[in-house]
């Protein structure tokens, strides 16, 4: 070490040590207070808090926290308290990997929960697979999540593009018309949803006039909207996501083009609707609505309001927070049923889960398909509410479909779950 004096070397290593001490003291991660006797069960909440899905991710996060607080108030799970830790996955797969690695290898999280962006969900799944850690994908609705990218350790809680398509298309071909135009975001989610729509339309005797591919990040849809008018379809079916979908909504409603032709849209997430309810148009899907006329719904809304009081949360829960809450609650019940935090036992307790309609606050019983790990649930079709009962009443629910009727029948063939013996066993 020519040229470096000993004193200076000592100084700089002292500096390093001091910095390291600060890092150790402050975190680097958010922890909640551990207040349990005995070893708590720790969950890693992998929510997008910034980036394109940051807004929905925060809604997801609040609902998961609500379910945790509830179970802790009742004395925890298996007599153990539930602890949680969170970090922003930034709507970026690279961050998802890093956060998942941290939560599993350093924080010893028993289960990871939370997702919006399918790339982030897959990045987390890759890490979870390796370690055998259970991962609940709460809100990524890409059909591939329960198809080619399924996993033995992952459970998918949202309805996907195929489910909504099945609920909407067949009926519309009969009642509205046979000539369909597809407007599809040019990425995997768009394509798989469009393929499902095409199959359904053709099975019902309709025909596809054209499939217009829209590049991701498109902000001006006038060219497409003019083309839609020139082609004169009976129905336009869209498979758009993220900000593109929001810009499309603005421009269609601006033109008052939302009534003719008829539009069939995919799921519109509640946090995306909340800021811009006037731009809703056509028929669209959802898995849940806070004004469903079912017992327990009002109580759930009140619980949400109590839990989020004083925050900038949306004042009523929507499909995203609903999925986050239900996934977390069912996880706790599965652990109780399994009587253990052994990952294989929890997986088995979830795999054949049946959830009664009354308990799910939906119209039909829901169940998890053991071959794809996707929750099969009631799918609702809605349109913009012309006669809202209050300032939150944006949807007019038109119909609800039995999960069996809208199940993605092609998914099990694409999904290969590895046998239990190949899953690394973990116990928290």
């Amino acid at each position: 070490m020519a040229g470096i004096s000993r004193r200076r070397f000592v100084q700089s290593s002292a500096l390093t040590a001091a910095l390291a001490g600060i890092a150790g003291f402050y975190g680097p991660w958010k922890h909640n207070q551990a207040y349990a006797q005995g070893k708590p069960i720790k969950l890693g909440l992998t929510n997008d808090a910034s980036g394109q899905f940051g807004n929905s991710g925060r809604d997801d996060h609040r609902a998961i926290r609500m379910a945790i607080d509830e179970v802790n108030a009742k004395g925890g799970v298996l007599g153990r308290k539930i602890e949680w830790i969170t970090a922003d996955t930034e709507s970026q797969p690279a961050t998802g990997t890093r956060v998942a690695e941290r939560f599993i290898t350093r924080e010893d999280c028993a289960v990871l929960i939370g997702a919006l962006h399918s790339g982030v969900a897959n990045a987390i799944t890759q890490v979870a697979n390796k370690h055998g850690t259970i991962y609940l994908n709460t809100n990524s609705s890409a059909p591939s999540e329960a198809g080619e990218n399924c996993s033995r350790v992952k459970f998918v809680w949202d309805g996907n593009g195929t489910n909504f398509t099945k609920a909407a298309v067949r009926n519309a071909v009969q009642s509205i018309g046979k000539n369909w135009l597809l407007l599809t975001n040019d990425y995997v989610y768009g394509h798989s949803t469009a393929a499902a729509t095409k199959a359904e339309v053709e099975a019902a005797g309709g025909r596809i006039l054209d499939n217009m591919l829209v590049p991701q990040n498109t902000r001006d849809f006038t060219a497409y909207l003019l083309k839609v008018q020139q082609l004169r379809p009976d129905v336009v079916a869209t498979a758009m996501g993220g900000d593109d979908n929001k810009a499309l909504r603005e421009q269609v409603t601006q033109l008052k083009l939302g009534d003719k032709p008829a539009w069939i849209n995919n799921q519109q997430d509640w946090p995306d609707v909340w800021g811009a309810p006037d731009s809703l148009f056509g028929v669209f899907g959802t898995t849940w609505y806070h004004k469903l006329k079912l017992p327990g719904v009002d109580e759930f809304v009140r619980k949400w309001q109590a839990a989020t009081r004083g925050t900038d949360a949306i004042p009523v829960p929507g499909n995203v927070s609903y999925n986050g809450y239900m996934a977390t609650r069912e996880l706790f019940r599965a652990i109780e049923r399994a009587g253990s935090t052994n990952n294989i036992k929890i997986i088995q307790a979830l795999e054949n889960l049946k959830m009664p309609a009354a308990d799910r606050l939906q119209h039909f019983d829901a169940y998890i398909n053991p071959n794809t790990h996707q929750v099969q649930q009631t799918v609702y079709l809605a349109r913009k509410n012309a006669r809202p009962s209050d300032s939150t009443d944006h949807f007019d629910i038109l119909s609800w479909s039995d999960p069996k009727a809208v199940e993605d029948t092609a998914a099990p063939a694409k999904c290969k779950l590895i046998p239990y013996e190949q899953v690394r066993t973990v116990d928290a």
Partner: protein
Amino acid sequence: MLDLVPHLLNGLTLGLLFALIALGFMLIVGLMEQINLAHGSLFALGAYIALQFLGPKPPLPPELAAQWLALPLGWRYGLALLIAPCVAGIAGIAVEVCMRRTYGKDPLYGLLLTFGAAMVIEEGIRLTWGSRDHVLPLPPEVSGGFIFHGLIWSTYRFYAAGIAAAAIGLVWLLIEKTRTGAIIKAGAHDSEMVRALGIDLSKLRLGVFVFGTMLAAFAGIILAPIWGIRPHMGVDAVIPAFLIIVLGGVGSFWGSVMAALLVGLAIGLTGAYASEWSLLSIYILLVAVVSVRARGLFGKKSLLEA
């Protein structure tokens, strides 16, 4: 063939909107030889400030707020178009004051500084207004659609394109036909001479930068009803603006306007006939043009290629 006409018309209106988006950026590049990467965030800031003025809680003293809310939406909208850019101009002053330290250095530093400023402004927006989407209320006079040649067109879009054309014309007149414009242009090309004439160059630069900021904010308000308002909308504006300047050539006003129209036509026509390529088409257009012409369509020699 007749099918093509609506798409040409759409491409031209889109081109005018792109020119409006790029106008403030163009001005600062052309007259100050600085790349303002905060352009997009200032664009977004304009939209948010207008949103604040047009929403239920305008940032005014209570008595004034009541009077303001009593005005019809059309009036408020028109006034917000003037007031919001002025408010956003304050952010422009802050950025320019920081930027002074980079004058005379490699233009890279100005570019990096404004890159940092863009991050700060965007995060500031997120903290102030939250991360969710908003819609700018539009007066009924300019919203809705009209039928032309059997097709429904957006009324607002044509108003917006008209405003864009007017803004372009006015800025051009200001630079080319007024004494202030002459001084500004002279200051850009020969700062020694302008200083010798007893004109305060730093005030001049501040003025140009703030005017560029105000144009960015103005464009943000005009585009908000079409794109919607969200914190990262700035990125959607700054990249096309940058592209248009490079395609048109640094220092050429009409080169940039023409580039904007070309970009609009490229997106409009590919959108209709080869929809999946519509966004890629503008990058391919740029690569094709700049591969053949070193300084874009009509660029002049500038510090920015040192």
